[in-house]
């Protein structure tokens, strides 16, 4: 094998107008333009999208699985961030 393997790209698709782009998977392509072309064929054969983002996988920085505790556990005790924490008398009406 003479050549280098094509780089990997992460593919994000906006399913409908008004929605966020969502990660749908990844694919190999030589450059961004081809990544979009390939993503069209691989991930939107049934009109699954109205817009495509492609990002080189190597450019993504991910949190480490071992950091899950320190990152996300602190939110657990902050129940007062949810509306259900507060008892509002029914007489007040919808709030």
């Amino acid at each position: 094998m003479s050549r280098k393997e094509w780089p990997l790209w992460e593919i994000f698709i906006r399913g409908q107008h008004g929605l966020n782009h969502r990660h749908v998977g990844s694919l190999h392509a030589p450059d961004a333009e081809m990544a979009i072309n390939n993503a069209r064929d691989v991930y939107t054969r049934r009109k699954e999208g109205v817009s495509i983002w492609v990002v080189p996988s190597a450019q993504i920085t991910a949190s480490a699985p071992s950091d899950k505790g320190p990152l996300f556990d602190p939110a657990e005790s902050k129940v007062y961030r949810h509306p259900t924490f507060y008892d509002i008398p029914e007489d007040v009406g919808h709030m």
Partner: protein
Amino acid sequence: MYAQMVKSEGMKSLEDMTPEERAFQERIDRGEKIEPKEWMPEGYRKTLIRQIGQHAHSEIVGQLPEGNWVTRAPTLERKAILLAKVQDEAGHGLYLYSAAETLGVSRDELMEKLHSGAMKYSSIFNYPTLTWADMGAVGWLVDGAAIMNQVPLQRTSYGPYSRAMIRICKEESFHQRQGYAIMMKMAQGTPEQREMAQDAFNRFWFPALMMFGPSDKDSVHSAQSMAWKIKMNTNDELRQKFVDETVPQAEFLGLTVPDETLRWNEARGHYDFAEPDWDEFFEVIKGNGPCNEERLEARRSAWDRGAWFRDGLSAYAEKAAARRAAARVAAE
């Protein structure tokens, strides 16, 4: 099943596990998904690479028997449908290769292992597609058997594999239905067409039953894979389910299941049926099926003859990147 006889690693009891292994097994037992960068036993990783890789190879090689009829489809509509179906299979292969790559194997490595014969693909694709009716039989039976196996795998423990299976299952139903529609057309057609439909059914019935892999009593690697939830049902369970669902569909077509021993067993609530010829199965797996050489040769030659194109696109991408960099410098 698209992954037959995947070699798994030895099974350990909870007591013999290291604390890490035990925590891992408990996560799986709780129904949690395992994601790529998380700790996993080496055996889990290796077994998954084999299984997902074999599954991906099956999707890719599986294009060949149907690709054989794209240019000879009886109508333009049938041609468009078959082309769309074959294109879906390419997509399935790509979703699965990507899932395998999250386990630390490269795409080129997977390709190389397919081409060298180090990795297998499903035995079913080593049978020839001789008539147009075979396009019906393949969609109905082969995709039907694949669905039987893939639906439960949507709940598999490995996140990327599970997500690939969910995408694939959404697309498979079209495959089976277009196949069955071809069979209906043929079965209701001229006597010659009926005969073609029956002939295709005769040739694909037992190879389709083999797709689920050897009988449970000869299936040595199931226990560990089932504990890890990368195999959700035993081979015989799925084979029985397939037979039970397919027989009434054959009756509707007015076709005869090519098995004289086939009987409804009232007590079991299932059909009794003849096992496929396992010697034939093992021969096909070993590389001695009717089309093994042809299939591998087609894949190798597609890879080799596509090299200039892959290299060309890489060279273009590099030059374009260099041009963009130069333009940036000039603009500063």
